[in-house]
């Protein structure tokens, strides 16, 4: 296989996005507001971790340096992780969790839709499988955003707070890292700028139903966006997440069930 560092890095980025959000969602397991939603979110967590495994396995093959899906997930440090900042944000309340899922699922939906046409067959195949899962995640999270946004005074207030806290992490989704730009140029990846208007349209549609508004800095000026995750510069939350997620493999190297 011809080495293509952009392809490897892009796979790691997609894997890290899915793994970190999957882990965040799994933190709700056993703590969901009711049993049925506990299971729903745990299902989504499992879908995401499954997607991460596929991308890690492919990345390990591409790297061909003895890496495995496990070593990529459990033995890299924070600065090696290429996930966007949005997915590492703490769960907060149910409103924040479902909004984070909605922002991310809408992004994955349009991204995977296009990645299915990648010239790279493996990337296309993984995306095709994941797309069906994401379509359900998007439906589920959209429902919740509408339900809470257009719900009681308290649920609306909590949704607004979640929007305020998370909106600044959405810009990074469409800001291509060098490896993404390179891959798009070669026809293997996706031009993220072409995904952005579709995402924005979806957010506008759901927010309208949910009676929520997109925050603006001031009249006619867009909010300043936090970036850096795709390049390994993370918020303070990722370190704590990795400490918990990687503990077992760090303390007992090679430990198995």
């Amino acid at each position, binding site marked *: 296989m011809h080495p293509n560092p952009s392809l490897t890095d892009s796979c790691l980025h997609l894997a890290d996005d899915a793994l970190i959000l999957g882990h965040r969602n799994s933190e709700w397991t056993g703590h969901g507001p009711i*049993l*049925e939603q506990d*299971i729903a979110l745990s299902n989504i967590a499992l879908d995401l971790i499954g997607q991460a495994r596929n991308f890690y396995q492919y990345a390990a093959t591409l790297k061909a340096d003895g890496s495995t899906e496990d070593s990529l997930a459990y033995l890299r440090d924070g600065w090696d992780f290429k996930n966007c900042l949005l997915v590492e944000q703490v769960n907060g309340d149910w409103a924040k969790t479902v909004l984070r899922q909605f922002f991310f699922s809408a992004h994955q939906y349009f991204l995977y839709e296009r990645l299915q046409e990648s010239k790279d067959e493996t990337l296309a195949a993984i995306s095709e499988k994941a797309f069906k899962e994401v379509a359900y995640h998007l439906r589920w999270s959209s*429902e919740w955003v509408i339900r809470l946004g257009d719900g009681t005074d308290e649920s609306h207030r909590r949704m607004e707070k979640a929007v305020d806290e998370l909106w600044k992490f959405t810009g990074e989704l469409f800001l291509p890292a060098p490896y993404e730009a390179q891959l798009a140029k070669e026809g293997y990846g996706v031009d993220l700028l072409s995904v952005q208007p579709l995402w924005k349209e979806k957010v506008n549609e759901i927010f309208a139903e949910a009676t929520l508004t997109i925050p603006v800095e001031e009249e006619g000026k867009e909010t300043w966006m936090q970036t850096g995750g795709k390049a390994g510069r993370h918020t303070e939350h990722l370190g704590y997440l990795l400490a918990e997620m990687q503990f077992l493999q760090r303390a007992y190297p090679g430990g198995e069930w």
Partner: protein
Amino acid sequence: MSEQPWPLWEVFIRSKQGLDHKHAGSLHAADAQMAIENARDVYTRRMEGVSIWVVESRHIHASNPGEAAAFYDPANDKVYRHPTFYDLPDELKHM
């Protein structure tokens, strides 16, 4: 927490091979749409089904167990209601 608990729903699932929807269990949900999504997550995660029906439990009317004797016992000694009760003549084909 909400003052009013979500109502209970009964879930019916049709499996891939099955012709009819069978009772799978019950769950809580705020409305029908959420009930279907919850049923998908709770009852079809191991490929149990391809179709879901939900109905709010309060809409199901059940027979009274106390009346079981009056309801069902009289059928016990009516063997002639079963086709196997009758001897068919040999000339009769395709039965």
